[in-house]
Structure formats: structure tokens, C-alpha cells
């Protein structure tokens, strides 16, 4: 579904992405893992067209995404930090998004209900806590039933209940055959979610394996331990 070929990106002296190639297929839930500044977010932004690679290309459903924007209809993105115009209410933000993506009538309001955002529709964004904003971001990402979900640190800032609800939602969507891309620091959370792991460091893609393969290779059951083992190798 998403194919990256030899993607490189440089910010000044920093090589954010260094010759990254990978393939992501539907029905997978892929965890993007790596230390801070390893290029995870840059990679996600490249897929979303927010960052234009210096070289290499990315295709989405066999089409080069460069200078295209329509393909993003099929992506739901939840940013790491969700900030919205201070003076808009949640309702207005939702309406605006619906307005932008009006071509997709089948709305998935599961998360709005789960987070009971309906009760907060008239709250201004400025008055919300970080967690609530995060909930709005998550709800927005899932709202339009996209084929691909890209979640940047989805559980950061969420309370345990919400976090659990989100995880359930992710699993459910994966079951429906959607592609889910997650970055996270909290490896323990990913255990039950992910099917494949992409590990990045210093802008390089170190490996891309299924979680089973990783477990076999390392002999560890827990993802966090497995990763730790890889890193110390």
C-alpha cells in the first residue's frame, strides 16, 4: 500500500532520513520505533507530504505522492501534539474537518462516543487540557474511516481509560484490514497491537521485521526486552 524507495532527507547538517526503503501493506499494524531524533516523525511527515524528500520517492497505492494531495483522503493522522485555534470550539473543529473531507459520508464516531466528546462540543480549544486535545486528535483521525491510520505517539498524555479505549479501537480497525502506523516510546503498550516492527536509528532504517520474526531472533517474548536485546547487540 505504501512503498518508500531510497528516501533521503537532510535538515541542514542533520540527516533525518538516510536511504530509507520499506513497504507497508494493509491489514498490518506497524510500530515505528527508535530513539529520539532517529527520523520517525520525519518519515511519517514524508508519507503525509508534509516533508518533501530530497531524493527517493514514496508511492501510495502505486502512485507517487509528490505534489498530490488527494490520496490523503485515505489517511487519518493523529499528530504528536494537537493544537487547534484557541477560539474554536470542539464542535467547530469537528464541523470544519467534516467540511474539508465532505466526500466521505460514512463517519466513524466510535471514539467521539467513547471519549464522550459530545458533552464538550461547546468548549473552546484554549480551555482544554492536553489530554482532551489528544482525544480530539484521535477522534479526528478515526472519524472518516480512512484506509490508513498514522498515529504519532497516540497514547502520550491520555489517561489509562482513554488509552485502553484507543488501543481497542486500533485493534478493531486493524482487524478490518486497515494499515496502521504507530510511533511510540512506550513499547509495552505496543505488545498487543503490532504485527510488524520498523526500527530506525540516525535516519537509517535498521530492520523491518514481523513481530514473530523478532521474537524468534531474540528469543524474547516481550517487545521491550526484544528491542533492548537488538540494541545492545
Amino acid at each position, binding site marked *: 500500500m505504501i512503498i518508500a524507495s531510497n528516501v533521503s532527507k537532510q535538515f541542514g547538517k542533520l540527516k533525518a532520513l538516510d536511504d530509507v526503503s520499506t513497504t507497508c501493506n494493509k491489514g498490518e499494524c506497524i510500530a515505528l520505533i527508535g530513539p529520539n531524533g532517529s527520523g520517525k516523525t520525519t518519515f511519517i511527515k514524508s508519507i503525509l507530504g508534509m516533508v518533501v524528500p530530497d531524493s527517493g520517492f514514496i508511492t501510495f497505492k502505486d502512485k507517487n505522492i509528490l505534489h498530490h494531495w*488527494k490520496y490523503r*483522503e485515505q489517511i487519518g493522522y493523529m499528530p504528536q501534539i494537537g493544537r487547534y*485555534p484557541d477560539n474554536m470550539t470542539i464542535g467547530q473543529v469537528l464541523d470544519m474537518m467534516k467540511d474539508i473531507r465532505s466526500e466521505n459520508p460514512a463517519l466513524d464516531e466510535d471514539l467521539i462516543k467513547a471519549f464522550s466528546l459530545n458533552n464538550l462540543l461547546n468548549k473552546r480549544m484554549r480551555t482544554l487540557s492536553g489530554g482532551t486535545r489528544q482525544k480530539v486528535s484521535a477522534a479526528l483521525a478515526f472519524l472518516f474511516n480512512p484506509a490508513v491510520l498514522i498515529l504519532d505517539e497516540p497514547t502520550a498524555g491520555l489517561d489509562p481509560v482513554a488509552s485502553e479505549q484507543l488501543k481497542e479501537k486500533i485493534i478493531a480497525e486493524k482487524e478490518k484490514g486497515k494499515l496502521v502506523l504507530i510511533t511510540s516510546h512506550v513499547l509495552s503498550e505496543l505488545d498487543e497491537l503490532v504485527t510488524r516492527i520498523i526500527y530506525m536509528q540516525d535516519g537509517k532504517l535498521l530492520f523491518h521485521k514481523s513481530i514473530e520474526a523478532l521474537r524468534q531472533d531474540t528469543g524474547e517474548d516481550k517487545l521491550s526486552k526484544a528491542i533492548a536485546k537488538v540494541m545492545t547487540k
Partner: protein
Amino acid sequence: MTDILRNRIVLVYTLFLLAASLSVFSLEDNSSKGLLSLLNIILIVVPLVSIIFSTIYVYNSAEFIELLVSQPLKRKTIWLSLFTGLSASLLVAFFIGAGIPVLIYQATMIGFTMIAVGSLLSIIFVAIAMLATVKTRDKAKGIGAAIMLWLYFSLLFDGLVLFLLFQFADYPMEKPMIAISALNPIDLSRILILLQLDVSAMMGYTGAVFKDFFGTYTGIGFSFATLILWIALPVWYSTRKFNTKDL
């Protein structure tokens, strides 16, 4: 998309302009003297508020812009809606704050010119602000750049012109001055108002050269075209930059 701006700062700005223009008109017994004081507000405060507010606003909504970019939207659409949103709200603020008092107290050609020029200046400095933000990633640097730009247009530029004038005092400088004034939207606006306000003094020989140029329909057309160019060029360039910008 455009109604992003029910901002408290805009409200304060509106009230400030309103208070300033009302007090200016009611304090001065002579309403053309009120216009003079208002001229200073228009030429100094309007660009300042426009540029600073727009810069800060764009930086503050950086994350939201990112989110919008991730949506199925053309970047051009996002950037242009941001521009229209900002200029529309600042225009409304300017119109309520300064336009209406002017219409009440001075519904003359001077008043209309002033409103037109103030509106154009508001938009021009939104455009310039957006150019500044797209060029610099760092917020502090960007706001600094915006303030420097404002300082340049409202003060340094004129200082340079004055300096040039003294240096080339022996040459006929009238014609070049017209060309130079086109390089600064604030100067251009000021001259347009000056021609209405100080028409007697502008009729002196040198002034007559300016008057002959700016006072004619072609001159006024040229000035307004230049002002609109001052909007179009920064918007066009910043849109181009924004299109290829990494967020």
C-alpha cells in the same frame, strides 16, 4: 476555514482603533486636525499590528497548519485561506475601529482615501508577515524579522530616502522620488493622503511634480496598482515557498 479568527487580540485592536479615532475626532475642534492624528495611527499602528499579529498567529497555529496539511487539502488552499482569514479579520477590525468614525466625522474624499489606504495597508502587512513566517522557522526570529520589517518600512526607509535626498541635493530628484516611493507601501499611502490633506503646500514647484503624477488618474491608478502588487507579490511568493516547505 476562514472564520478562525475570533481572537481576543483582534477585539482589543478594534476597540483601540475605535477609541483612538473617536477621541481624536471629538478632542479636536477641527476635524481635519483629527484626521491628521488619525493619519499617524493608520501609518504606524495599522502596519505594526497587522504584521505582528499575523506573524504570531501563524506561528501559534503551526501545529494546526500541520494537521491541515495532513488532510486532503491543497497547500495553496490552506495558505490562501489563512491569508484571507487574517486579512478579513484585520480589515473588519480596521473598518469598525477607524472606518466608521471617519465616515461619521469626515465623509469626504480624504476620509475615503484614508479608509482605502488603511485597508490596503492592513492586507499588505498581513502578506508581508506571512512571507516572513514562511521564510523563518524559528518563532522568535520570525517575530523579530516582522518587527524589523515594520521598522524598516515606517522609519529606516524614510531615513535612507532623506539621506539620499541630501546627498543628491544638486540633482533633480523629483522623478526618482516617485519611483523610490513605490518601494515602500507606507510612503505611497502617505503621499496619497498628503495630496488630499496638504494640497496647498503640494502645489509648490516640487509638490506640483508629485501632484501632476499622483494627482492624475493614471497616477492614482499606478499607486493603487502598486499597493495591490505589494499584496500580490508577497502572497504569491510565500505561497510558492509554503508549497515546498517542510513542516
